[in-house]
């Protein structure tokens, strides 16, 4: 009956309850949607890092990642790829030759990372082929084709069919060079990546460097999902104890920090929203107590003990918070689900987003666990907000309150 009493009390002053419930609803809705928005941005960034830039797991000779030494090559990379492809959780694997070098056009030159790929296998591991905005992706046709990023193309002032001179080290430690013709220009959401990475066929760069075609600096592995990273990483490492196996969190620790830091920021943001709402709720409940002094005095006079008075005030406050909270959470959920499919296009700030490596198309994502945590936070806020008003109610003297 105390809970029924508290619920009915909530609707005594409908306008006042409506105002504070609306405030809570909007606050929680904004918090949920912002969390989903930021989560979507971060997820997209992480998926871009994995899908375009580094994949889930990479295998190298020990020391290669720190030094990029040309000589630190995996001798029989094809057999490594074959073994990896049989490990549970692995979607695909491919070998790469990776050389930090110089690329020069007729106008200018710059340092780039040349990645020699097997075009068909690379398609299974990274989404580079989907990022082509001009020309075509690498295939078996043509002599020394190269795919470069849009930003690099602008920097080198080259376009399709133009030549780029690549200077590399060969197996005899001599400097050698080759002319590559631009067949495709790609664009990812990361300008810095586009400026620094060019792609050629593995066979072409092997021939230029004097490699036998079986060697590679890197084996890149795509998994079925991010959750399989740890288990698959251990399985791969167990197969190749002499090689260095690193997952995306170790290769790109900033991606991992981004996920955990964003989670923390979002919860801090939600706490700030709830704290602001908390004061609104306390104010409302203090008004409620002031208006009902005589009734509270009567209740205490007829035998309602302090615990029950406290419970009644606390339940009223929690109901007030939870009504707004649930509406905000449900609203936030459905709006998020809509934009999860439709996306939010922030093309006005496309360049700014791209310079930071983010896509201007954001697909907000909300996890069920987040909804549960936010619901708990709302209930805790309700309980916390009730403490001072309930204390004020308990301090009332029944004989004075009745005559107020």
């Amino acid at each position: 009956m105390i809970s029924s009493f508290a619920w009915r009390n909530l609707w005594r002053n409908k306008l006042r309850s409506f105002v504070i419930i609306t405030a809570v609803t909007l606050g929680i809705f904004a918090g949920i949607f912002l969390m989903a928005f930021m989560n979507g941005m971060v997820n997209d960034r992480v998926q871009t890092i994995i899908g375009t830039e580094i994949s889930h797991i990479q295998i190298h000779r020990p020391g290669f990642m720190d030094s990029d030494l040309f000589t630190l090559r995996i001798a029989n990379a094809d057999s490594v790829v074959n073994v990896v492809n049989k490990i549970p959780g692995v979607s695909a694997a491919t070998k790469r030759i990776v050389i930090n070098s110089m690329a020069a056009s007729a106008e200018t030159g710059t340092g780039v990372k040349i990645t020699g790929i097997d075009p068909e296998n690379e398609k299974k591991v990274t989404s580079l082929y989907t990022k082509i905005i001009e020309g075509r992706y690498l295939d078996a046709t043509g002599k020394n084709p190269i795919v470069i990023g849009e930003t690099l193309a602008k920097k080198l002032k080259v376009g399709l069919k133009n030549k780029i001179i690549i200077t590399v080290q060969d197996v005899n430690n001599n400097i050698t060079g080759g002319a590559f013709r631009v067949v495709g220009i790609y664009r990812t959401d990361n300008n810095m990546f586009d400026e620094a990475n060019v792609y050629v066929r593995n066979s072409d760069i092997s021939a230029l460097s004097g490699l036998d075609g079986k060697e590679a600096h890197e084996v890149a592995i795509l998994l079925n999902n991010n959750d399989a990273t740890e288990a698959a990483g251990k399985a791969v490492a167990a197969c190749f104890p002499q090689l260095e196996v690193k997952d995306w969190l170790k290769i790109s620790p900033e991606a991992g920090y981004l996920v955990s830091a964003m989670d923390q920021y979002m919860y801090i943001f939600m706490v700030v929203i709830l704290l602001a709402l908390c004061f609104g709720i306390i104010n409302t409940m203090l008004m409620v107590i002031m208006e009902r002094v005589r009734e509270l005095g009567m209740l205490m006079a007829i035998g309602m003990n302090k615990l029950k008075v406290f419970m009644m005030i606390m339940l009223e406050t929690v109901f007030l918070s939870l009504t707004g909270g649930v509406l905000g959470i449900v609203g936030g959920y459905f709006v998020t689900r809509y934009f999860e499919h439709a996306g939010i296009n922030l093309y006005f700030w496309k360049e700014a987003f791209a310079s930071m490596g983010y896509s201007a198309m954001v697909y907000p994502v909300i996890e069920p666990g987040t909804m549960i945590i936010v619901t708990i936070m709302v209930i805790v806020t309700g309980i916390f907000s009730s403490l001072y008003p309930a204390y004020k109610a308990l301090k009332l003297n029944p004989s004075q309150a009745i005559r107020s």
Partner: protein
Amino acid sequence: MSIIEIKGLHKVYDGKSLPVYAVNGIDIKIEAGEFTAVVGPSGSGKTTLLNIVGGLDEPTEGEVFIDGVKITGLSGKEKTDFRMKNIGFVFQAYNLIPVFTAKENVEFILHLQGKPKAERERRTKELLEAVGLGDRMDSRPNKLSGGQQQRVAVARALASKPKFILADEPTANLDSKSTDNLLEIMEKLNREENITFLFSTHDQRVVSKARRVITIQDGVVVSDIRK
């Protein structure tokens, strides 16, 4: 044994400059089944007296026994529990819970006592019929007249089967017809069910119905007349 026994009661409030002697040495015994009115001018100390007898206030000096139990000096929690089980309150401003129906207002005190649902419903129905509101059980206070609200308050006061009913100016907000009606019900309950009533009042119609009238002035009993 008296239902209410007041011994050497004093209550002094701290005034702005001088102490205020609200009750200044009162000794009263009220027996079961009495229908007693406490009268006196404003500021005479009758409300303070009723508050102390009702366990809502603590005296500066003296003792109050209810059915042999000394209630002065009990802790706040013990007093709350004692009030719930032993004293029925009727207030000047009715003080019903506006979000509850008449039935729920009466039932609430039984709920506080932890009575089972069947007993709560039976007792509530009996009491509301006894005060002539059997057909208004589902009405909220704002749909009832002042007299009807006060009758619900009487039914609520009786719900816990208290040792006596303490009524602080119960007719002050009622018109003549409602006052007569309420007094008739309370007299009937007193006569037929031997329920003890203790009123404070200014109302001569209540005084004329009371079988004992205690007059207080300046915190002391100046007359105690049994009719």
